[in-house]
């Protein structure tokens, strides 16, 4: 009996280690490749190492444009998601009406349905309404699936707060608006920040829906996609990939530490 358990433990430890390697090596490889000297082929091992591709990437105008667009879209979408997500969470958290389930379902739908479905429906709707594709159509699409990250975080945090804080503020003479600014907002700020981080990462990385709702412009992921099929300089793509990894994982790390502090506090 004991040896069976031991065997099971060894087995699952091995699988776990293999799995973690499996998950992380590809990403590590990309970072590794960005230092490779080779231009045309994707050889392993590379013939040499260099930093020159970083400076080449730096000078590529199309990359900067794509970066600017991605950042712009991510910021605006996150802002919209913050407003819509927070308001909706505020409306819902105290009550238990049937509509609550519907709202939660509605909010998660854009991210639950396959990207291609969201993409094609928004894309064809934009077409139908004869709205020109622009930065704003991308923003509209992104905000739609970013709402859920803010909504969930805000809802969870609001639920953990005691409502008597709100009542105390009202009792002391603050109207609901002032109560929101001076009492509610400070207490959910970290949750909102975490939601905003997730939303930013989500928007920055999104490619499928973006393809359908962008015009001629390129966000970084769209740029990358075109580079896959008609590459100009492969290693430059690698460099951009490294940057994208940072841009999406750093916010996540940040969001993780923000929400972890809270859950530790509430367990105290």
């Amino acid at each position: 009996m004991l040896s069976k358990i031991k065997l099971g433990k060894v087995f699952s430890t091995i699988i776990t280690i293999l799995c973690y390697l499996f998950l992380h090596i590809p990403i590590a490889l990309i970072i590794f490749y960005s230092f490779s000297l080779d231009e045309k082929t994707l050889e392993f091992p590379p013939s040499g190492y260099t930093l020159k591709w970083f400076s080449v990437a730096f000078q590529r105008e199309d990359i900067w444009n794509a970066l600017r667009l991605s950042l712009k879209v991510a910021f605006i979408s996150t802002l919209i998601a913050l407003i819509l997500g927070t308001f909706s969470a505020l409306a819902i958290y105290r009550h238990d009406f049937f509509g609550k389930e519907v709202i939660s379902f509605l909010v998660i739908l854009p991210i639950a349905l396959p990207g291609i479905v969201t993409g094609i429906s928004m894309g064809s709707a934009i077409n139908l309404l004869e709205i020109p594709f622009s930065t704003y159509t991308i923003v509209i699409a992104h905000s739609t699936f970013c709402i859920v990250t803010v909504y969930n975080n805000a809802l969870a945090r609001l639920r953990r707060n005691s409502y008597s804080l709100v009542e105390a503020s009202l009792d002391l003479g603050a109207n609901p608006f002032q109560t929101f600014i001076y009492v509610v907002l400070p207490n959910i700020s970290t949750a909102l920040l975490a939601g905003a981080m997730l939303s930013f990462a989500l928007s920055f990385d999104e490619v499928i829906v973006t393809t359908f709702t962008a015009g001629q412009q390129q966000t970084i992921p769209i740029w990358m996609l075109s580079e896959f099929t008609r590459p100009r300089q492969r290693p430059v793509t690698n460099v951009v990939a490294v940057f994208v990894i940072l841009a999406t994982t750093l916010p996540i790390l940040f969001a993780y530490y923000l929400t972890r502090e809270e859950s530790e506090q509430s367990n105290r």
Partner: protein
Amino acid sequence: MWKLYYNKKLTIFLLLLPLLIWLGLVYLGSLFTLLLNSFYRVDDFSGVIVREISLSTFKDLFGQRTNLDIIFRTVAMASSVTITCILIAFPIALFMYNNKNQFLKPILYLGIMLPLWSSYLVKVYAWKLILAKQGIINFFVELTGTQVFLDSLLSIPVIGGTSLSFSYMGIYLVFVYMWLPYMILPIYASLQRIPLNLILASEDLGATPSITFRKIIIPLVVPGIVAGSIFTFSLTLGDYIVPTIIGNSSYFIGMAVYTHQGTAGNIPLAAAFSIVPIIIMLIYLMLAKRIGAFDAI
């Protein structure tokens, strides 16, 4: 002005209004136009969309052999990816659950979170490089002399191909890689949700660890497994990028949708194609709700 303070229903409505307009009008509206489009058809000669309700597009969808192939291919891939993910994710989630080392805990958790949130495209791209003929896998294959093994794998009909980076096996590998974290986290979450005293009670009543495992843990983990499978299934059904980049140019649903919605294409058919994953997922979601999988997300 503040007389409205006591009107709770009005406040809720006002707070929700922007969201309802945005999601209700914009998003649901778009979905509705998609649905509507699938009931239209394209005139065979002029290529123009005929805005009349009919089922002819659906007839095309299910009537043509190629289309049916596409659907079956996609569903088969989604299923095999899902099953593989379950088989790999489960021991991992168990390991995370059984781990008592406080230092290891965040490392294990972040070790799943970070790949999950790493850029989708970067990951696909990385695999393209890995699977390529000059890539790292080939390097190790040559190093270890297992070329024969690789060749025989590749020569398996249907799922093999000219190289790993252009075959079903390659696609399958990449999908498993991409969605594995989506399966691990819900399973881990539902393991955590098992009240400790249930396990203690089971031991107290004399059950051996393996019986406790089979009778208590597994049934309570099922919702988490189902929740994870919702992700892996849905994500695979709709994905068109991975099969395009890694694949051997045989079509999956996502690619079909993408191709048909192009300007020269058949938007009603594209719409009809995308209805398929929606329907599959809705059925799946309904079944999952029955089992209570939603609490595990």
